[in-house]
């Protein structure tokens, strides 16, 4: 937002520890732009333009959060996630992509990204998303919430192999609906008469379920939408 001052309000020099962020994107111009915009909020500890470079440098610099592009040569963000997840579970990944196609979003979330934002996001919002991911929270855009609802609403009465893993509870669905309607966590809490902490728990549960759903469900979901 152009009219808002983007000074170092939070996470500035006075804060105890600035977040260490790593950029992975095959467009150097874009990396430079993000670095310039985020510089006031966080420490950008490194950047990489290829999957191999990313894997090596993330391991070396151990950042708090990795901003990950989806589409890159040699497998893209997914390949980075899969290479890093085992060896460095403490590193959180936030997907930052120009694509908001359903298969990209859900694919990255299933591979283990903690959130997904598109590149049109404003710098302040991006900084906020990074902070939330670093705190262990999930970042759901309204669009992502819509995709999840779509995926689970497609066949409400279909038999599922493991209901506990695959089904969202009604409460989680309600939270997702409000997210998709553009509500902030605070507003959701007010609307449902629960605490913000509870909203965050619900959202994290949705994310966990998405990652752990079985393969069968995913492939059927994708086939329904002619994604594969």
């Amino acid at each position, binding site marked *: 937002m152009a009219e808002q001052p983007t000074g170092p309000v939070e996470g500035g020099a006075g804060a105890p520890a600035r977040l260490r962020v790593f950029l992975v994107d095959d467009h150097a111009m874009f990396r430079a732009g993000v670095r310039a915009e985020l510089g006031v909020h966080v420490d950008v500890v490194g950047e990489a333009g290829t999957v191999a470079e990313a894997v090596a440098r993330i391991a070396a610099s151990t950042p708090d959060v990795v901003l990950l592009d989806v589409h890159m040569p040699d497998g893209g963000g997914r390949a980075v996630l899969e290479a890093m997840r085992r060896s460095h579970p403490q590193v959180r990944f936030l997907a930052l992509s120009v*694509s908001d196609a359903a298969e990209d979003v859900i694919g990255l979330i299933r591979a283990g990204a903690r959130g997904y934002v598109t590149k049109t996001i404003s710098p302040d919002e991006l900084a906020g998303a990074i902070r939330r991911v670093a705190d262990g929270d999930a970042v759901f855009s309204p669009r992502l919430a819509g995709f999840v609802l779509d995926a689970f609403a497609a066949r409400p009465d279909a038999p599922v192999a493991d209901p506990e893993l695959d089904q969202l509870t009604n409460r989680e669905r309600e939270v997702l609906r409000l997210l998709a309607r553009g*509500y902030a966590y605070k507003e959701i809490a007010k609307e449902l008469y629960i605490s913000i902490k509870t909203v965050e728990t619900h959202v994290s549960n949705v994310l966990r379920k998405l990652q752990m759903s079985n393969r069968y469900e995913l492939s059927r979901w994708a086939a329904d939408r002619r994604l594969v």
Partner: protein
Amino acid sequence: MTQPPRLYRAPEHRMAAGVAAGIADHLGISVVRVRIAFMVLLGLSGLGLLLYAAFWAVVPLRPGDAAVPARRDLGQLLPFVAIGLVVLVLQTVLFGSVGAAGTAGWLVAIIAVGAGVIWHQSAPERRRQWDERMPVPWLGAVIEENDRRAFVLRFIGGGVLVAVGIIGVAAVYSPAQNFDAVVNGVIFALVGLAGVGVVAAPVLWRTYNQLRSEREGRIREQERAELAAMVHDQVLHTLALIQRNAADTTTVQRLARGQERSLRNWLYKPTASPTERFAAALEQAAAEVEDTFAITVETVVVGDRGTDERVGALVAAAREALVNAARHAGVRTVSLYAEVEPEQVSVFVRDRGKGFDPDTVEDHRHGVRGSIVGRMRRHGGRAEIRSEPGEGTEVRLILPISRDQSTAERDR
């Protein structure tokens, strides 16, 4: 066309293709008698089968009933198969082995069945195409080769014909009861066929490859041309406009946003007609508002359905809500969320702008009352507007739909 009671195959209580049921309906006699007649005729050199196949090929399915998913009752078929077998055995026992006329009858029957199957597996509109193109319409069924099912049928049918032909030639022209001669004949015939295959295969293969690569090239060229046209018509023009209006932030943002949307749709979205699908109509309305007021509408649509008058009214009300948000809220981003559920369609338009006190809206302002609340009420839905000064506004539009209507939509 003049005589009203035409002969049709009956799909509702059919066993195989509905021929017998159709004839029984037409003549007004019991279907069992027709079936037994077919079975007895089978004894006359397979005449029953031949007739059945011929009827199948020629007689059309009763129109209007085509959608009725009539199950073939294979269990019922068993007694008739038994009768047929008994007749065949009796014939063999009473009249000795099947003569040349019998062989010919069987061959004709098999060919007729094959042709009938191909003909009836094919889609009606394709049949109409054949009618227009081919001098002999039914030839199309044999020549056409787009369908995988047709390919399998042709492969099996062709194989059976070749095998029957070879065995038949060997059996008819060899000295009677000499099994070795039959085998030798078959072997030589196979060698002959293999020879033809060896001679023809390279030519066929080359032609096939050539055609395929040519087609691939054409498709690639077409896609490239389409992409180039798209880039030229839209992207380059937008970039040129942005260069000229570089000082005007609003215009630049609007142009970039519109271009982003159109490229995004082009890359990731299956296109649907906004006059037919709810999601496409809503997205189009959002796009129009984005372009007119230079704001961003974050559109999320879950589920989809066809449109009708009521759904159209819902889209129009949502559009009005978006316009209001764009005009009065004073924000750059508005959220639009729609969900299609089995019982209802709901749309939410939310902004985080100025907001207002709904009680203080003056009576002469018709935007909200007429275009949103009134419109929804007229079409059996409801609209709620929640707004507080400083907190932004949310317009909730809910349109109940009856269950059968929604399932009918989905089936279509």
